[in-house]
């Protein structure tokens, strides 16, 4: 939504020109400016400005949900997709949880792709779930699959059905990966049949539909991201961040599990030779990626470890990364609540972005309101809301909107 003439009855051409003359070019500028001072500067009536603000707020403001409700919903929808390996399941606390992103990293040849293929086959076979396999390196091929399929003990019919539930997309760059993630959002899958004998692009001769995806596997991430990081323009880091948000929001909105494959690379630090442990020499590639999104990170075959990360975005765009002590998390709550002018609020407010861990919500009491903010704009409108209303409880009930 942009500031265009006609989006509100009060926003006429005249008003628009006056606003632009006072330096208001877009919605953010408009919302950040205090309406009283803006009314004086631009000689637009306060009433007009107020009605425009209402329209913008109605369009942008995030709805608040109580922490209790969210926890209940989370408990109801939580499913764990077992991995087929009891040890791995125990490590992961039950299996691959819906709504979470897991990274598998390791050196070359250790078996990351094999693990992912087995996860996919297991999910499709035992649970009948649809799986989306995003495969830029075309690592799934008949070569690999035939040996996996031969090892399965189930009847060929069941195996065939299961294999029909695993979809493969081969994007050629990171934009293709974004598009592929759109496929996972579709309510059912459409697959295309290639005409026999066609070389390269197949024509879609028939379309079948299947159930909703429950597992998305991206294998492997550095293949699409390293070419971007190589450019001197620094666009790469922003794109990694964007991809991280896309994966995490996909996982939590659609309630599916996401597995991402990463490489390891050598850290430059330890050449002192003072008995450095072998696992400090290796770190997952793609650096800041792990701070953005990960629920679980399994370092395959090096040292099994799981970490959870929380990132909170502040309005000045600096990000705070925290580690996962319970006590530290509580301090975070307080820190964040202080960002909001608490003098006007009667209950503690928690600001959450889609990047926050679901476990976080267990800390909340019924009195806490949770706003799901998806962008900085939401944050701004939220701040305005706090200033204008004394009793924030009014905003807890969705009917009021």
């Amino acid at each position: 939504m942009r500031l265009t003439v006609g989006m509100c009855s009060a926003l006429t051409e005249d008003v628009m020109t006056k606003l632009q003359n006072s330096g208001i070019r877009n919605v953010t500028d408009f919302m950040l400016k205090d309406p009283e001072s803006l009314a004086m500067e631009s000689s637009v009536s306060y009433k007009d400005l107020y009605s425009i603000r209402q329209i913008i707020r109605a369009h942008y403001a995030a709805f608040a949900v109580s922490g209790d409700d969210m926890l209940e919903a989370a408990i109801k929808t939580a499913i764990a997709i077992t991995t087929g390996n009891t040890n791995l399941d125990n490590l992961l606390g039950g299996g691959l949880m819906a709504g979470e992103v897991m990274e598998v990293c390791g050196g070359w040849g250790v078996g990351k792709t094999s693990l992912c293929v087995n996860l996919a086959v297991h999910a499709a076979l035992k649970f009948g779930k649809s799986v989306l396999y995003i495969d830029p390196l075309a690592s799934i091929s008949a070569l690999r699959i035939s040996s996996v399929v031969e090892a399965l003990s189930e009847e060929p019919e069941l195996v065939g059905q299961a294999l029909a539930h695993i979809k493969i997309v081969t994007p050629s760059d990171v934009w293709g990966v974004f598009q592929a993630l759109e496929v996972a959002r579709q309510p059912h899958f459409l697959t295309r049949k290639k005409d026999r004998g066609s070389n390269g692009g197949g024509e879609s001769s028939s379309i079948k539909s299947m159930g909703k995806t429950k597992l998305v596997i991206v294998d492997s991430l550095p293949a699409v991201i390293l070419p971007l990081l190589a450019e001197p323009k620094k666009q790469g880091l922003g794109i990694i961040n964007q991809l991280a948000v896309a994966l995490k929001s996909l996982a939590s909105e659609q309630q599916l599990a996401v597995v991402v494959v990463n490489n390891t690379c050598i850290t430059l630090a330890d050449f002192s030779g003072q008995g450095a442990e072998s696992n400090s020499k290796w770190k997952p590639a793609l650096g800041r990626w792990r701070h953005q999104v990960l629920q679980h990170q399994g370092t395959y075959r090096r040292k099994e470890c799981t970490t959870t990360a929380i990132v909170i975005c502040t309005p000045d765009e600096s990000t705070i990364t925290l580690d996962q002590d319970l006590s530290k998390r509580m301090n975070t709550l307080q820190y964040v609540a202080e960002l909001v002018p608490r003098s006007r609020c009667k209950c503690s407010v928690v600001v959450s972005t889609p990047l926050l861990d679901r476990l976080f919500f267990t800390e909340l009491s019924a009195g806490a309101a949770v706003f799901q903010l998806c962008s900085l704009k939401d944050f701004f409108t939220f701040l305005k809301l706090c200033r204008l209303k004394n009793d924030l409880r009014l905003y807890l009930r969705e009917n009021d909107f």
Partner: protein
Amino acid sequence: KKSDRLLSVLGLPATIIFKLLDADFVHDEDVQGLTPMELSSATGLTLKESAEVVRLSAASSIEQPVTILQMLKEQCEVPYIATFCEALDSLLGGGIPLRAITEIYGTPGIGKTQILQACVSVQLPSSVGGVGGEALFIDTEGSFTAGRLKDMATDAIQHAQTIGGKNVDTSDFTDISILKGIHYFRCLNYIEIVAVIKHLPSLLKSNPKMHLIVIDSIAFHFRHDFPNVKARAGLLCHMTQELIQLATKFNLAVIVTNQMTTKIECEGSSELVAALGETWGHCPTLRLALHWSGETRVATLTKAPHRRNSSVNYQVQ
């Protein structure tokens, strides 16, 4: 119902995205219905850039995925290119597989350039169980010798006649036809290699019989000429992606040779490993290491999706 797609995931350059965000164009729907002229006056983009934005946001074709079942049905047999060395063929499960990138690395003099043999074997007619395709050879070191090739060709013809016997006609398979079936590129720096790879789709369209691409060696220019490691990793990943996508689309085998380098451990010990680093290690589908063990040559499969890692002794004729 089309989902709300952000404009920033369309693949536009960052400068355009910033201008769009400044003017509040965030989603696809914000741009819908606008002409490039209107968009450029609202955002300050040039007409050409606006046209690009409108075009990309309107393009909504999402490639429909293929299921594994369909893939298995379409590719029921995996063809191999025989190396004519029984030990190697049994190690690899038949030979060099199609639709995969195979890397062969080893110390100098071990016989990496024997892969010329693959250029000949790929041309073995399908009537005698071969692939019946042509080869493309990208030479970076200048070690290609046509004389050796001719010897291999003569051997291969005899071999074909032996397999075919009296029933199968292999008269098309001659010295001349084999030499004609190998397309040769000499690349003097890494830019030329990238250029050949970019040119491959049109090459493959005009030569549909191409079933093998050999790059000998990939390490040479990337080790000496390259300014920084990050850029190298990025470029190698990019090239691998293009190659593997072409390999699966056009049914090719890709063979890449690599050199060795010394890795120095913390304690002062050193190890001989493949060049081009860890990142390159993830790129090929199969990795075959050739090394000496006393007086015999040993081949070790270090990365393979379909076989266990194992070693075998082999000989060079």
